[in-house]
């Protein structure tokens, strides 16, 4: 190890909150010119630690050294002045301004008149140096997500950052955009910049990081060189036990259609066509994956199927019954349950108790209530059953559900829909934001119900998930189905290309 070349040293960092200890005795050393991945599940304390480095939180204990000098980072401004730049997961850009204007926005000491020419020249230098090719005059809203991310990186570099913190930078990107981002990171590394890369995706860590620190439950478990570790051992460090990556799928041959979507079109609230003439079938006992970059009509399509949105044209037939534009309740009672992508926004009532949320699908049914009165005793029993069966970590089922972690909320929601024993389960991003154990659990459950001849529509951006679980995969792009492929005979790259709109040649 090259001594004295630490860009950043965080020694014995502890951060206590009234209810929890988010970070405990973390020793983190970042060398100059390295990409250091900070790996951990949700709630492991990654974000807290980053916020400490960026001056949003002050550590309860511990010291931070930048270039071997002890520093006190009291605010993001301090952090910027010390050469620390943060690229947030959600971009901090003004949509209606140009790239150049966005770069100027945060600059200090510009005087009254801004020398645009000078800034533009510097911006071009930075762009060329790191292959961050975006036009300075383009408006932000015209740019793709990947390009917007580049603007964020430029902004940070422009302010003279030598240490870059990227918070789950690939979460918003298409698979094709990930590799170019990694190239940029490597270029910056070769130029002597130090990069902290926060993620929970193991493949990415293995692809780009030099060193990896694993956080679990607020503690830094271990820092390892990439060359001396494997994906499996990292996962074990993250979770505390071995994790299953490949699932065994029974071979099944299903012929009979359970759901038939005939030429369905759906419009958004503002009247724009978001699903255009889609025809799709789901067979009995199969898992149909719908792949696509989010916002390409997947949500709207399934929401139209479950009655949440109007079908503009076309027909939806379920189990031999026309369910086009029937009410949500009618369709659920016929046997379709839906796990929405937006859990807190759509699937749950966050301020109501776990009990109230657990019974959302069956409070009106005979077992839960008479004509008018709701039997809360039964509701509580039912909630306890769900919590026990699905290992939902909950302190008090009468407290608002928003107090649960994202993973536990998802488990409760997933359980609630699954226990209705639907014929078809539609799951939108069921594992998004879940930790590895919960993810594994949810995937296993979907495979289990498939074996019981339940059908599943799985919407996901995670290609590994789609490929490992689905029987067939439909790819959506701009509201249309680009193609439907057999999951056994397709690779990630092909699906990735289809997600970008490329049709299969031999179809």
């Amino acid at each position, binding site marked *: 190890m090259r001594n004295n070349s630490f860009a950043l040293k965080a020694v014995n960092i502890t951060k206590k909150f009234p*209810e929890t200890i988010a970070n405990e005795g973390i020793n983190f050393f970042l060398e100059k010119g390295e990409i250091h991945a900070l790996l951990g599940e949700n709630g492991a304390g990654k974000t807290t630690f980053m916020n400490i480095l960026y001056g949003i939180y*002050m550590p309860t204990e511990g010291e931070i050294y930048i270039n071997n000098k002890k520093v006190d980072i*009291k605010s993001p401004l301090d952090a910027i002045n010390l050469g620390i730049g943060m690229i947030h997961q959600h971009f901090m850009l003004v949509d209606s301004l140009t790239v150049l204007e966005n770069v100027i926005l945060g600059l200090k000491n510009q005087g009254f008149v801004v020398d645009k020419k000078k800034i533009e020249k510097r911006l071009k230098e930075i762009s060329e140096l790191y292959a961050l090719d975006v036009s300075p005059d383009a408006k932000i809203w015209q740019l793709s997500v990947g390009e917007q991310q580049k603007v964020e990186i430029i902004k940070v570099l422009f302010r003279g950052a030598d240490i870059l913190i990227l918070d789950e930078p690939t979460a918003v990107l298409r698979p094709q955009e990930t590799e170019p981002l990694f190239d940029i990171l490597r270029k910056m590394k070769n130029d002597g910049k130090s990069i902290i890369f926060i993620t929970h995706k193991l493949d990415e860590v293995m692809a780009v990081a030099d060193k990896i620190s694993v956080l679990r439950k607020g503690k830094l478990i271990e820092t390892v060189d990439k060359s001396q570790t494997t994906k499996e051992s990292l996962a074990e460090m993250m979770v505390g036990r071995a994790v299953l990556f490949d699932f065994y799928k029974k071979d099944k041959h299903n012929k009979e259609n359970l759901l038939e979507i005939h030429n369905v079109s759906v419009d958004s609230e503002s009247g724009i066509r978001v699903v255009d003439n889609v025809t799709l079938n789901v067979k009995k006992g199969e898992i149909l994956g719908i792949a696509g970059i989010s916002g390409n009509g997947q949500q709207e399509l399934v929401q139209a199927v479950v009655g*949440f949105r109007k079908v503009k044209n076309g027909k939806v037939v379920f189990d031999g019954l026309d369910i086009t534009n029937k*009410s*949500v*309740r009618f369709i*659920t009672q016929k046997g379709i349950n*839906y796990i*929405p992508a937006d859990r807190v*926004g*759509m*699937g*749950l*009532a*966050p*301020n*109501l108790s776990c009990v*109230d949320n657990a*019974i*959302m*699908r069956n*409070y*009106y049914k005979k077992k839960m*209530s008479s004509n*008018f*009165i*709701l039997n*809360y005793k039964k509701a509580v029993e039912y909630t306890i059953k769900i919590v026990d069966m699905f290992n939902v970590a909950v302190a008090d089922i009468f*407290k*608002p559900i928003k*107090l649960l972690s994202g993973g536990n909320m998802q488990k409760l929601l997933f359980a609630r829909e699954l226990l209705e024993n639907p014929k078809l389960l539609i799951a939108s991003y069921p594992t998004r934001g879940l930790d590895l154990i919960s993810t594994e659990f949810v995937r296993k459950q979907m495979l289990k119900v498939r074996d019981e001849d339940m059908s599943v529509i799985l919407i996901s951006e995670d290609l590994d998930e789609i490929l490992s679980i689905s029987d067939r995969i439909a790819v959506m792009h701009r509201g249309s189905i680009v193609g439907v492929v057999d999951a056994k005979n397709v690779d990630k790259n092909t699906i990735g290309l289809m997600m970008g709109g490329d049709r299969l040649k031999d179809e």
Partner: protein
Amino acid sequence: MLYFEKRKSVSKGLKISIPLVSLIIGVLFGALAIAIVGINPYDVYKSLFLSAFGSWYVFSETLVSATPLLLITAGLILVFKMGVWNIGAYGQYIMGAIFSSYFAIFLPPDTSKPLMLLLMFFGGLIGGAIWAIIPAILKVFWEVNEVITTLLLNYIALYVLKFLMYGSWRNPTSYGFPLSKPFPDSAQLPIIFSHTRITLGFVFAVIAVLLIWFLISKTKFGYEVRVIGDNPTAAKYAGINVNKNIIIAMAISGALAGLAGMVQVSGIIHFLQVKINANYGYTSIIVAWISYLNPVMCFITSVLFGGLESGGYSIQISMRVSYGIVGLIESIALFSIVGAQIFLNYKLRWRK
């Protein structure tokens, strides 16, 4: 630097102590205002308290003022729980009073008392309900904001009342005053405690609050109301008929406000006039909030506000202060209680 930090959860103790502490602060500020006018604040407060709670008789007057507050607040709690902002209790109260007064004024005075009161009872309910269903329908089918429609309907109700009082419903022998003819005995709610003005209306009020408590916490409808109130999208997703529930809840809320109007004209005023204390409709909005939309809490808050109302009237006379001072005390108290609500969700912290 001082800054606000969001609380994760709110303890029961906090829920009670925050409004209490803020009420005390409000009282202190009120004292300051009274002192500026040159009156001894201690005397005013003491007199105010004694005039509201000092004897059985003054307390009975407090309950008389609390009666319409209880009725209206019960209904408001229901709609506020579902996130529908009915600001129109004022107008619904007036319409309830008008509808029920129709029978008192135009039926023969010797109509049997039970029949007369029954007609007036339903008149009040229906009058208020109609005035609340109109904005509910506008909201549900045309997405018209109910805050605006309910508020504007208040003015329409007031002018309908004025129109009647200066027009065809005016008592020809009232020397031009905008009053109806007095209600016959058959149209007056019976008094349930002798030597007080507490009428059967108080019983209606208690039943209404209990009914709303039962609806919200024990029934399917109440469950749906709570889900809609917390997350309308989730409600729709769960297959709840949001529109139907909004109309039903608004109708209930309006009906109870209308009943309050009926109880006031039939039980207390005994004729219809322009001034029928419709301001209870606005006060109840605050009562509902200070009760944390909890029907049981609203018993306490309604009585407190009833006391402020009735005590305030008395001290005008006994202390020779203008009603403006009473209004001032009331407003400052409200301001601090409502303002302190932020501390329920946030705590103040100090950071270097």
